[in-house]
């Protein structure tokens, strides 16, 4: 409906509702052709990235430590991206904005703590005592737990609210988040518990000092993204995308919409658990509600920035938002401006800008 051509205050029912966009890959156009089309399609993203690069140059000129900023931005951005990726998948499959995406990560991370404590809640985890192999096995377990919880949420709550408005489902996922936080508070109190990383210390690459943990997060994000892209190319992945696009048509071809939505929730739950384990590692500690209070709002912003429902957009949006947040921090500190919590302010401004000027996000396509 092109009533949006009018500029009256209420071109009614012009609800900003973004249809999922199918990745129309598989065309055999020439490379330069594809490149130019890709540039045209992603021009908004390129403008944003360009703005970041220009600002960074200005900051170098002003003598700020841009290298450290980039590294910090990558660490935060990769976690935003991981949480946002789960949000995008769930949104695409079930049109639900999952407020519990953070807690589906904190909860499995707490289970990891519980196991490391051997069930002794008054004990203390010494990160130095946790081996790499142990950490790997526990992360695997966390992913299984996160995925199972997410599937349960889908089957017992989301599917039963299928006929309600998306906002009702949002409230329900908020309820799940509150429930999980409540359980954590009852089991672990409000005190912070130490949490191990895969590798501690830092590595110098190209003259920049990278904390090892940041590199681990970036690698996990990269592997997860590649695996997802691979999945979307298999029969199962195509069925998943088709079911998200049109559940009825997919059912006619023998694809169970319920199973496909559970698959999407399961993957998202696994990603949430990875985010939880790695996010707790960032702080080397964990408190109830950690992922919700520290990463969720940024992840939502990243998902919207990338065009909600677009997995690739979520990753791009998360990485970009990480840089924007780090830049806000470095700039305000560098210029001596006292702004409480500049990264949060930056995320808020980005969200308003995106919703104000391009609700479809970076990779979302015009309706």
């Amino acid at each position, binding site marked *: 409906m092109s009533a949006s051509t009018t500029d009256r*205050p*209420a071109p*009614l*029912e012009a*609800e*900003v*509702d973004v249809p999922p966009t199918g990745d129309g890959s598989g065309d055999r156009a020439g490379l330069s052709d594809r490149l130019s089309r890709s540039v045209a399609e992603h021009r908004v993203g390129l403008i944003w990235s360009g703005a970041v690069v220009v600002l960074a140059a200005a900051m170098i000129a002003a003598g700020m430590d841009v290298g450290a900023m980039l590294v910090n931005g990558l660490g935060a951005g990769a976690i935003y991206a991981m949480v946002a990726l789960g949000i995008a998948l769930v949104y695409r499959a079930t049109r639900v*904005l999952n407020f519990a995406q953070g807690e589906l990560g904190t909860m499995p991370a707490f289970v990891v703590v519980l196991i490391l404590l051997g069930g002794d809640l008054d004990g203390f985890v010494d990160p130095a005592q946790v081996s790499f192999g142990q950490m790997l096995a526990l992360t695997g377990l966390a992913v299984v737990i996160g995925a199972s919880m997410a599937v349960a949420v889908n089957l*017992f*709550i989301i599917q*039963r*609210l299928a006929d*309600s*408005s*998306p*906002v*009702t489902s*949002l*409230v*329900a996922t*908020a*309820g*799940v*988040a*509150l*429930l999980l*936080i*409540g*359980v954590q*508070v*009852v089991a672990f109190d409000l005190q912070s518990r130490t949490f191990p990383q895969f590798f501690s210390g830092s590595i110098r690459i190209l003259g920049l000092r990278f904390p090892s943990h940041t590199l681990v997060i970036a690698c996990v994000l990269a592997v997860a993204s590649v695996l997802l892209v691979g999945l979307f190319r298999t029969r199962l992945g195509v069925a998943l995308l088709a079911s998200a696009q049109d559940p009825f048509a997919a059912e006619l071809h023998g694809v169970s919409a319920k199973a496909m939505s559970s698959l999407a929730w399961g993957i998202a739950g696994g990603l949430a658990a990875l985010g939880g384990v790695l996010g707790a590692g960032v702080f080397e500690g964990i408190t109830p*509600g950690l992922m*919700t*209070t520290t990463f969720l*709002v940024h992840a*939502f*912003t990243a998902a*919207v920035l990338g065009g909600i429902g677009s997995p690739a957009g979520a990753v791009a949006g998360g990485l970009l938002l990480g840089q924007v947040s780090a830049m806000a921090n470095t700039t305000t500190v560098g210029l001596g401006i006292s*702004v*409480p*919590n500049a990264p*949060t*302010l930056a*995320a*808020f401004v980005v*969200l*308003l800008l995106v*919703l*104000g000027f391009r*609700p479809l996000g970076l990779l979302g396509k015009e309706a």
Partner: protein
Amino acid sequence: MSATTVRPSAAPRDLGAAGTPRANVEAQSERLTTGGVAARTAVLALALGAVGVIPLLVAPLTRNLLATTAVYGMVALSLNVLVGYTGQVSLGHSAFLGVGAFGAGFVLTQLALPWFVGVAVAVVLGVAIAALLGIVALRVRGLYLALVTLALAVFAERVLFGIEPLTGGGAGQTAARPAWATGDLAYAYVCFAGLAFAWLLDWRLTASKAGRAIRALRDSERVAASWGIDVTRYKLLAFVTSGAMAGLAGALFASITEIVSPITFSFMLSLSFLMMVVVGGIGSRVGVVLGAALYTALPFILDAGAARYGWFPVDGSAAQVIGALLLLLVLVRFPGGLAQLFAPLIRWCSFKPMRSRHGAASATAGGGSDVRP
């Protein structure tokens, strides 16, 4: 008939005059017997009296809890104007409340102005922030608006309330009670009066043309516009009303403990408000206030139970778990919430006859927990 019309010049054509005037257009169903009216009045007066004497009966240490319950009841009513009447969800009410509280604190402590000025400033600030959000709501709605409100709550919590000259930063801002109500008992009654005011405002809103127009907008802006309703004006009016209630609640909230600190207004508090409204029954005045009372009192009830009875399985620390489970239960199984549970009673008390087949569908309890986008 035109003689009784208030605006003779604009009096619409009386369609009754066109054909045969029909006599008995006042339907039977609108009438109550004198006894019915008397019974309802008596029951309502008793209920009101009972609520009124509660602060006198409870242990002195519990009086501040009652004041908090009343204030949260006001916030629930405020949120209900948005969720129940306009169909837009707000995750930003912690910010509304906080802006009112810090505004009042600033005026009382930093400017040393009288208490009523603090209250007035809090209301103005509540209206201002709600109006800003309302302007955003003219452009985005549904999930996107929910995200904006969430971001607003987080922004207020971590950025706005952290600005030390205005809010005192982590140490907080003091906010003294009015000189005529410094005691806990007196102040609890002040908060009850605030709740009564918000209740009356909400009642008048729903009973007059503004409330009808707002609820019509929720269902269809096209239809409302085709009936001559200015969509922009009434949507903003809803936000402004909600903001005024929340700002007032903030001012009263500030003086319960007489210190306002940023940590109180975490965005998670907004989720608690949302639980009160959904579990109470979206769109129902009685329901959302009951929901607020339930959620505010729950930790204390559980603690009291655990202290008194050995068999009691949980204490106050489990309140959030139980509260969240209640929310999920209501969403999946009982979309009408508490208001649905008490629907016949609420209907009877609103001076409606019991005979009608259709429950309190539109008059008191709204359309269930489905938030219309």
